[in-house]
């Protein structure tokens, strides 16, 4: 039950949100009837059409273009298993073309699970008394950062619920606190944010503390489903307020923004087109598309029947398809696959889905890193996590398959943000930075945190392999990386291009 104070805060904010919706300057970009008409029209794509779409997606990897809605619908409706194998290969090819064969690692950090909303599928909904909700104190936050940095992590996505105790001031305070911490060689160098939609003035405050990316997941692009799952009278209820959350962020000057859908709330094929229209709308309005796209799948949460019984739950087979389609649809975007998914599926999707960013060693309970030891504690979590590998184990698995693990945080510290970053990704040249900085940050991890076994494979196989790649593709950068690798061995840290 909400307190009187919480209710008053929610009522006041809701009034302001509804007022914003009334005066919203933006044109709607989601038309459910049109999306269904396209999906229906493209329900039986022929082989040649699919081959043409794959060829176009490969071309788009170097031109920055996205697929058309009809093309995404054709892919989503495809049944032919042989063609699907070719699509998976195309997704992997595109990802390597744009970003190189590296996987960027991050960790989620839940800072506050207090929430005034009542989303039907969420373990943290205010009416769910079976899940303990809490907010970290600054001292508890320090402890989380200590544990995370001791694991070797450099990148975070911090998560906040929508609540007066985790308002913008608290968000700014905690992000600044995270950046200020240093434990030996350990520090967090990039903080991305997953938080509720804000007003422009609030985004301006967040921008000042130097965040990486601001994520707002739409959850579902189907307005009727959205309204059913996000009760009226809650702050998450107004659909358009959330739909234009990242437009307001861009208006405030936050130019690295990230999209996402919670797959399992509505038809996955429809949601893919929703994501595409959203990316197109951002491009049209601001010239900068989504920095990343996330595609969490609905997972069981304690005392949350909808999370188990939704008729739109996505099978593993369909999930692989939608991840690959996202890569073909929007080649330049970062593609985030989280530890919600089981380890074998995650390994498979690196190769089949063109995934570019993954978390590992994740704890999704508030205070989880400091207090939990690699198990799920359902009564403190938003949902159940599936891949419980440590960072070390995850990196070892990446190395065994020849991928380059990366803790890179260089771009946003080198002014490669927004419209400066986009051309690098759109014209598939960012990989030169990705591989160079991947090598450097991986070596840093090996020196400071890795087991002898991992260090062996990292130093003898992975780093030489990617240095050779860099040598062949951009010799001057390889030369500089070799110099910096030597300096890191002497004790210098945070070397990057």
């Amino acid at each position, binding site marked *: 039950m909400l307190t009187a104070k919480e209710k008053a805060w929610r009522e006041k904010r809701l009034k302001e949100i509804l007022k914003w919706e009334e005066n919203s300057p933006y044109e709607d970009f989601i038309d459910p009837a049109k999306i269904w008409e396209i999906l229906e029209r493209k329900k039986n794509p022929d082989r040649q059409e699919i081959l043409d779409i794959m060829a176009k997606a490969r071309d788009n990897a170097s031109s920055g273009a996205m697929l058309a809605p009809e093309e995404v619908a054709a892919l989503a409706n495809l049944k032919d298993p042989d063609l699907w194998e070719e699509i998976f290969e195309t997704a992997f090819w595109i990802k390597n073309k744009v970003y190189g064969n590296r996987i960027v690692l991050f960790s989620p950090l839940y800072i506050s699970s207090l929430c005034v909303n009542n989303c039907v599928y969420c373990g943290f909904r205010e009416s769910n008394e079976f899940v303990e909700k809490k907010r970290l104190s600054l001292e508890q936050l320090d402890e989380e950062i200590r544990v995370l940095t001791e694991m070797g992590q450099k990148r975070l996505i911090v998560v906040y619920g929508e609540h007066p105790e985790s308002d913008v001031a608290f968000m700014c305070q905690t992000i*600044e606190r995270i*950046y200020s911490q240093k434990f030996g060689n350990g520090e967090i*160098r*990039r903080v991305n944010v997953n938080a509720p939609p804000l007003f422009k003035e609030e985004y*301006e405050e967040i*921008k*000042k*503390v*130097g*965040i*990486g990316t601001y994520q707002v997941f739409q959850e579902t692009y189907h307005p009727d489903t959205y309204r059913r799952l996000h009760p009226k009278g809650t702050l998450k209820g107004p659909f358009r307020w959330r739909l234009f959350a990242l437009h307001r962020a861009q208006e405030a*000057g936050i*130019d690295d923004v990230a999209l996402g859908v919670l797959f399992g709330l509505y038809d996955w094929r429809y949601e893919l087109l929703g994501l595409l229209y959203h990316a197109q709308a951002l491009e049209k309005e601001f010239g900068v598309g989504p920095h990343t796209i996330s595609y969490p799948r609905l997972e069981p949460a304690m005392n949350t029947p909808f999370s188990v019984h939704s008729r739109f739950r996505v099978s593993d087979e369909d999930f692989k398809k939608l991840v690959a389609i996202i890569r073909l649809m929007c080649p330049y975007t970062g593609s985030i696959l989280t530890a919600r998914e089981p380890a074998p599926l995650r390994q498979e999707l690196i190769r089949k889905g063109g995934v570019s960013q993954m978390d590992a060693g994740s704890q999704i309970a508030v205070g989880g890193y400091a207090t939990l030891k690699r198990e799920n504690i359902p009564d403190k979590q938003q949902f159940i996590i599936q891949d419980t590998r440590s960072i070390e184990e995850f990196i070892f698995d990446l190395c065994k398959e020849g991928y380059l693990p990366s803790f890179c945080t260089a771009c*946003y*510290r*080198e*002014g*490669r*943000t*927004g*419209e*400066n*970053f986009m*051309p*690098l990704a759109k014209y598939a*040249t960012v990989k*030169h*930075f990705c591989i*160079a900085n991947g090598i450097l940050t991986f070596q840093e991890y090996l020196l400071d945190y890795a087991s002898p076994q991992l260090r062996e494979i990292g130093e003898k196989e992975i780093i030489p392999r990617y240095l050779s790649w860099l040598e062949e593709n*951009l010799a*001057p*950068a390889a030369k*500089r990386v070799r110099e910096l690798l030597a300096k890191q061995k002497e004790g210098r840290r945070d070397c990057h*291009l």
Partner: protein
Amino acid sequence: MSPVMAAFPKSFLQELAHKACERYSLKRVYFAEVLGKRRHFLTGAGQESFLPSKSAALKGNLVVFWQGELPCAEEEFLNFLKEEINRGLCRER
């Protein structure tokens, strides 16, 4: 609008980046605003070289990044930029 953007219109900084690229034969020059660890891109000129950039503070939260070898001392280059910026500020006032 951030203080940096309010003080230095994008068109002014863009022109300055072009001028600096030409005058010092640099591959790329761009400006950014310091926001904590973030260097928030404002505008720039030239072509990305994928080699390490050098950077220096100019005024307030404004920093410059450049790629390529300077034909002069770094100080001379930075003084040129600072003078241009001061001149620009005077014009704005």
